[in-house]
Each structure stands twice: as C-alpha cells, then as structure tokens.
C-alpha cells in the first residue's frame, strides 16, 4: 500500500526549520493572559506565547536526545500526559503552590542537565520531567480561556506542546557532531540562564 523506501533523511532539517519558526513566533510578555479567544488557533498559540514554557518544552526534547533511546521518545510521551493531569487540576480550580517558581526552575534544571550533558537513569529523568510537567500543565489549566470549542482548543494545545518537544529533538540531532554537541550544550546553558532570569523576575 505504501512505499517502503527510505524518505526520512530530510526530516531533521524540516524539524530544525519548524524549531526556527516556533522560536520566532514565541512572544515573551503575553504568557498567562486571560484570553477569551477560542478554538484551535488559541490552543496552538497558548503554549508558544511564553518563553518560560517554550524553553522548558524545547529543553525536554533536547535532553531526551542527549539521553538517547528510549528517553528520546519516552520524555515526549510522558510530558503531555502528566501536563494534562496538571492542566486538569488547574481547570477544576485546585490550587498548587509555587507554580511560577517551579516553571522557572524547570528551565534552570533541564537547561543545566543539557549543559552538563548529565546522563541520569531513565526513571530519574522521567520523574524530573513529570514533576515539572504538572506545574506547566497547572499554569495552562488555570489560564484556560473560556473556549467556545474545548475540543479544538485541547487538540491545538497538545499539538503545539508536542511540536515544541519535536523542535528540541531536532535541535538535539546536532549533537551527533562535535561542534553541534558544543552548540547544544551552549543552548542548554542559555535555557538555564533564561530560567534564572524568569526566577528573579527579569522578564
């Protein structure tokens, strides 16, 4: 039925392009506003309209690439599921302490893991990512707009989150070359510094 020949070689390039587009689209100041728009576009735009979320989610993909198989796909599998649980907690109105601090910490910790090329055991990596995913999800859940179409919103939201992970994985693919590995570790440092900036309230 389908052509079984190998066509996947340009995919890293495509994903890198997607990363560039995603990062360009991210706006720093508009995160967590109580927007009232609805639907797919609203869901798609929500995760990418805040650098704190963008950095952490790209970092998840990047770190997964550094850790190799099976973390490269297990982290992006785990993150949206746990994030949705956090989102559900936020939607039903249950409070969670220190959400913004935890989100900033997620960038710091994940960025540091990449910068130091830290190879933690898979379970520890899953636990760290899962813990931060709850806080990211809670932040999104509490700021969920009064959407006219919750299905479209949820689809867009999860899709955008997944694309951010894929962007991180695409960027992490550079690590197969020595110069690329250095660049990825520098990116991790930048993510970590970004997290510190969020923590001290510079952005």
């Amino acid at each position, binding site marked *: 039925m389908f052509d079984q020949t190998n066509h996947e070689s340009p995919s890293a390039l495509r994903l890198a392009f997607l990363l560039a587009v995603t990062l360009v689209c991210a706006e720093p100041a508009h995160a967590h506003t109580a927007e009232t728009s609805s639907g797919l576009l609203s869901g798609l735009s929500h995760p990418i309209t805040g650098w704190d979320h963008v950095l952490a989610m790209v970092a998840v993909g990047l770190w997964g690439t550094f850790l190799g198989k099976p973390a490269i796909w297990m982290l992006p*599998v785990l993150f*949206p*599921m746990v994030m949705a649980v956090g989102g559900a907690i936020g939607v039903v*109105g249950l409070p969670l302490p220190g959400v913004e601090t935890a989100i900033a910490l997620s960038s710091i910790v994940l960025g540091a893991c990449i910068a130091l090329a830290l190879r933690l055991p898979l379970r520890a990596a899953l636990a760290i990512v899962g813990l931060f995913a709850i806080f990211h999800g809670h932040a999104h*859940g509490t700021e969920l707009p009064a959407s006219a179409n*919750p299905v479209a919103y949820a689809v867009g939201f*999860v899709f955008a989150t997944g694309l951010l992970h894929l962007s991180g994985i695409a960027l992490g693919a550079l690590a197969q070359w020595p110069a690329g590995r250095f660049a990825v570790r520098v990116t991790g440092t930048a993510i970590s510094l970004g997290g510190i900036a969020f923590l001290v309230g510079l952005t």
Partner: protein
Amino acid sequence: MLQTREWRAVAIPSKVNALLQVAAARTRLVGIRFFRASCLATGIAISVPTRAQAHIVGIAEQVLQPVTSAPALLPLIGTAILLRQSPGFSLTRRLALALALGLVVGLIPRLMLPAATANELLALVLGVVIGAIAATGGRTPELIRLGAVGTLGVALGANLLSETKETLDLVTSLCSAFAGTLIALEIAATLPGPHPRAWQTIGERIAAAWTVAIATMLVALAIRRLM
C-alpha cells in the same frame, strides 16, 4: 476458506457475496469478513422500516458517529493504536463480539444518565484509560485487546446518536455504530502497513500520549461544566 463458509451460513446471496469480495479486494484495506459484517450491519440499519416523520439523524451520520465526535474518536484512536501494536493484527470474531457487547452495555448509561455531559465524561475517561495502555506500548495480550474494544463499545454506546430512546431508533443506531466502528478500526489499525518501522511505532505511542492528554483536558472541562 473456512471463514468464507461460515459467512455463507449467514445466507448472503452468492452474487452479493461475489460483489462484496470484489469490493473488499479492491479496497485492500478492509478484511473481507469484516467488510461483509459491516455491510450486513449497515444493511440491517437501512432496512429498518422508516416511519412517517422526517429523520433528523441520518444513517450516514450514525455510521460515521465513531469518527465525528471527540468522546468517541479519542477512545477509537487509542484502541486502534493498541490493536496496531500486536504484530500481524487482524480483527477477529471475538473482538467484534466484544465491541457489540460493549455497545449494548454502553446503552445503560445512555438511557439512565440524565445529562449528555455525564455520558461524554464516561467516554472520555475510558478514552484516557485505553490511550494510557496504548502509550505504554508493547505487545498486549488478547484479553486486554478484548477489554479495550469492549470499553470502546461502552464509550460509543454511552454516546449513541439516536433521535429518540425508542427501541427501533436505538437498534438502528447500534447497528450503524457497530458497522462504522468496525470499518474505522480495521482501517486505522492496518493503514500504516503490515511492517511498521521503528519511528512509526514511536509515533503511534506519542499519538496515544497526545490522545490521553486531549482526553484528560476534556475530562477536566466536562467536570467544570458539571460543577
């Protein structure tokens, strides 16, 4: 050959049988047995005597109901991915029976629960469960596959598209949903080809995780509506 004989016992005329075989062979997507089973269920649904009033919900909408509403579609995707993870998968008679049984069981909340939101909530929770099993991956035993298909049936039955709660309407809708689900499952579970690559398997698990995430968010929104 044995399977062909079994289905002949359902008394499909030989010419119709031959036509169905040709159609199934041409589609190359749907197994002949289930293509026939689906056609049979659709035929029963269509042949149910029509009443005088105009139908608001048509047969096509009822057949397509597994793929046109989120509470039904999310468990369907999860189930298809789960079935897909078994090498050499094909829909068996047991799976079809589990689906039929699930659909009938799903009618209980459909008839008992007053609010549509509650039925949606039930289907979405079942979608979360099925999707989570699919996202964990690995080869699943037949019992879990049967359970997943049965659960899918419950989710569909709970949100059955029917004009009224009269027996005739419900039977028509059940047959339509059964046919539509069998076709959708067969296509979704076999579409990527018989020998998926490693990245396809990973992609399927990521898709299952996304299904869980979407269903979880919709569960939360449904709870907020009920609160």
